[in-house]
């Protein structure tokens, strides 16, 4: 796979999973091509920033239209409202909730993929040097432009996930801020190089 094909694949991966062979070729190329590594690293803050802009405009809409924040159909204000739905509807909602809980368990236990590896952190978080975290079960926990740290996965033993943090922003206090950012998602720092 050459650089052009790799970048096409990288873009396509944003729209959905690649087939296994193409994904493997992309990963192989990224491991061996410094230009494409830089390309992917530079793209991450752009994507995180776009996520941040989406959240910013969601907040602006909620502020401008306070009653729009919760869709009308989800406002089950009382048991009476709930009972007013038909038996089939209530069964369907209950089934959907059970399915959501089951999927939650599945996603909580599955091995992490690189796409999961983004985390929001306080605005003035900085990382003077790469930081590594063990058993980081990282997910997108919030969104605000300029507050993202991009985290990429390194392979380790099963169910032990080591992440390498790249600071998106210029940084002052690496350890404390990034540690507190990941504390909420169960990560703990390990010595660099271990």
């Amino acid at each position, binding site marked *: 796979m050459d650089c052009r094909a790799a970048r096409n694949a990288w873009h396509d991966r944003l729209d959905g999973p690649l087939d296994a062979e193409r994904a493997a070729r992309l990963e192989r190329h990224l491991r061996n091509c410094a230009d494409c590594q830089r*390309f992917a690293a530079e793209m991450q*803050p752009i994507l995180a920033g776009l996520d941040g802009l*989406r959240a910013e405009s969601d907040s602006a809409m909620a502020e*401008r239209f306070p009653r729009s924040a919760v869709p009308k159909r989800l406002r089950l204000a009382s048991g009476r409202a709930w009972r007013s739905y038909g038996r089939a509807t209530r069964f369907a909602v209950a089934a959907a909730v059970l399915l959501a809980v089951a999927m939650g368990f599945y996603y909580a236990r599955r091995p992490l993929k690189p796409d999961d590896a983004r985390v929001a952190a306080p605005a003035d978080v900085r990382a003077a040097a790469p930081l590594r975290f063990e058993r980081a079960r990282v997910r997108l926990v919030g969104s605000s432009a300029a507050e993202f740290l991009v985290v990429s996965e390194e392979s380790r033993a099963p169910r032990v996930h080591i992440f390498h943090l790249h600071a998106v922003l210029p940084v002052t206090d690496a350890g404390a801020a990034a540690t507190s950012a990941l504390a909420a998602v169960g990560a703990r720092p390990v010595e660099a190089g271990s």
Partner: protein
Amino acid sequence: MLDESPPAVGSSSAAAPADWRGLPDVGELRPQLWRLAYRFCWNGADADDAVQDALLRAAERRSQLLDPGCWASWLKSIVVRRSLELRREAARRRGREQSGCAAAGGARPESQAGEGVAAVAGAELSSALKAAIGRLPERQQTAIVLRHLEGMEYDQIAELMEINAATVRAQVRDAREALRRMLSPVI
């Protein structure tokens, strides 16, 4: 870019003007339309204006909506078009003010669309990204906002922009690459 006249969305062959009363309540759609406009203007007052103007324009041209099922998409396309017009008007105003400042020996405003991005840090990154999006060609702006901020599928965007889905995909890709080129020196 989107044509000046609102699109005749849909394939219905009904020649009679659509019955406005049979269409969904615009009140339900207004927050979404406002947010869409805001994602182009990044200013609440301009978003208010864009939605209001778009609704008036839609009311004037409602006979052009052939398929009432495409009501929301049709309104969105008008909002996008009006939002882009407002952006252009704002840029022209800034240009005039800037030339006035220069003539009077005044200082230039620091951050605005159309200028190079200065070094940014912290919360300025979001401003830099907004400015960078504003400097993209309008097709790319529309495509990346609808894809990444609105979360629309390519075929939905294609319908709204009246271009084919493969072109939308290419526009989104080009927009991402252009943003990377503009912002990579400063982030």
